[in-house]
């Protein structure tokens, strides 16, 4: 189904037959889905459907029991976490995980994709390029004014943006966001939707979200997961009217 939509028939991310079992419990069960370049895909589903586990599997935090994850033609299941990052996958966690002891500037600088080896980090110099990259990203994530503040002093929403910024500065091809608007105020949600729209001009984005309003605002397509499997997939209208989806998720 996705193949028809994809221009040249090649996906940015192809997940096929992905299965992970924790002591016999299959959190993700023979899951397959495909992302086109520059697509915004939202994964929804009831609690325990395996949404976060899917992101964990793609970014290498959890190892797959079987199946394959091909990103840009590369098999990710064999790589280590930092190698997956280097091949262009960025992951934002559900709770904001920024470095509270460091300033916003330093948070972004640490994420800047240079000086990743021990010796590289020892010799890393803050040159004009770094400043430029940090300032650009800071503007995108509405934190220009807060560059010199310690990250601990930011609001919850700002921390979420900072973590998104930390992904952006890595210039990944695929951004994975786990509930980016959870716990945000209405204004912050609007701004985040705006931020995601800017981001998707140059990135493919995979989002987990519960807020259906927000999902409708941003999604190109929606994948509904249930008990580790894909229940339904398509436009937001399509999945909203899918009786299976109404049955397990929306209707209750």
């Amino acid at each position, binding site marked *: 189904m996705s193949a028809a939509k994809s221009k040249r028939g090649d996906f940015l991310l192809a997940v096929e037959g992905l299965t992970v079992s924790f002591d016999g419990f299959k959190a993700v069960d023979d899951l397959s889905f495909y992302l086109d370049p520059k697509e915004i895909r939202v994964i929804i589903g009831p609690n325990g459907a395996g949404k976060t586990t899917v992101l964990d599997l793609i*970014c290498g*935090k959890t190892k797959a029991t079987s199946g394959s994850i091909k990103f840009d033609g590369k098999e990710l299941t064999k790589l*280590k*976490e*930092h190698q997956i*990052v*280097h091949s262009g996958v*960025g*992951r934002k*966690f559900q709770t904001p*995980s*920024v*470095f*509270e*002891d*460091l*300033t916003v*500037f*330093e948070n972004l*600088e*640490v*994420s800047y*994709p240079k*000086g*990743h*080896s*021990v010796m590289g*980090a*020892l*010799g*890393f*110099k*803050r040159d*004009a390029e770094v*400043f430029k990259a*940090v*300032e650009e990203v800071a503007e995108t994530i509405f934190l220009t004014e807060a*560059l*010199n*503040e*310690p990250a601990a002093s930011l609001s919850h929403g700002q921390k979420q943006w900072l*973590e998104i910024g*930390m992904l952006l500065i*890595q210039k990944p091809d695929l951004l994975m966001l786990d509930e980016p608007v959870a716990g945000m105020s209405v204004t912050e949600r609007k701004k985040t939707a705006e931020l995601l729209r800017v981001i998707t001009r140059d990135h493919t984005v995979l989002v987990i979200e519960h807020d259906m309003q927000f999902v409708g605002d941003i999604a190109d397509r929606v994948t509904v997961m249930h008990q580790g499997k894909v229940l339904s997939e398509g436009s937001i209208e399509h999945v909203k009217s899918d009786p299976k989806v109404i049955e397990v998720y929306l209707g209750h």
Partner: protein
Amino acid sequence: MKSSSPLKWFATREGLYYVALAVLLVVILPLALDPFRLNMVGKYLTYAFVAIGLVMCWGKAGILSLGQGVFFGLGGYCMAMFLKLEASTPEATAIQSTPGIPDFMDWNQLTELPWFWEPFHSFSFTLLAVIGVPVLLAFVIGFAMFTRRVGGVYFAIITQAIAAILTILIIGQQGYTGGVNGITDLQTLNGWDIRTDEARTILYFVCVGMLFLCLFVARLVQNRKLGRILVAMNAQENRVRFSGYDVAAFKIFVFCLAAAFAGVGGAMFTLIVGFMSPSFIGIVASIEMVIFCALGGRLSILGAVYGALLVNAAKSGFSESFPELWPFAMGALFIGVVLAFPNGLAGLYQTYVMPLEDKIFKRNRGAKLEAKPAEKAAEPKPTAEKTPDYDPMIDSYSPEKS
């Protein structure tokens, strides 16, 4: 590191702290103390090397090692083996059944020098081994633990077990190691008698020099991006990993760095004290080293030096009068510090003394204060100033200007 000339750095606040320490160690103490006491201060300072390593490893990166005595001991034993071989010439050991080998080997019926002692005839090999052997062991332990994601309490327990194992090994293999007595009766270093007052004073100054070298290496690391990654790793290991860093490699690096510092400290200890024995490297000694670091302030490399000096001075003073009470005093000190001042002396200094300094500074030379953060890492030009809580002793990842 500095945006302008290196000399200017000494006029910054951080620079002045280093100058103050240098004046204390190079001028005040040598003038105030007799050679015997100065030698004792030299001994305390050798523990400061370990404490600096612990600041990097534990304070910054969050890796608590309860086995730093192992690396201290390895460095010390390497140096002791060289000195012992030099003292065991065939002439000096003519009365032994096998002349030319260290006395304790002869007592244990060894008839030739074990193979691993052979390279220690060479002074340059010994200098390499003082750093190389501890770093190698730290690398092996670090590689085995950190690539398997062993951390926290488990890592601390394993390092402690290693300290116990090494002690047992050394005591058990007394023919090869000198056993529980250690390696004693060391006399000369390349023909230079290290037992005279004059030699001990010179060794004290060498020790101070090496200490400052280590301080500057530690400072370089903490002010670079590497230092910020260590701190970041401590707080949010996963975020660092998923920002594209091989977390294990960074942990191995900082653990090896701490081991190298400890090795240098151990070698200086052997030279200054004149012998090396298993009692300096076991579990108790290793835990004491953590206390030096905690008391000084586990985030401050300068604090670690003061911590090592003060705790050891207190230990000597206390044990001279009430030897049996010292372990209790030490325990109480540790608990007190952890509960009441988690950032140790450096934290107290920052909270209570620095505001006073600020007042004096502002009154006398407010203008100079403006230029303060020029010392911070390598940005083109520091501009706007603020950072009320910023303390070079505590942390050097001050807010950077953009």
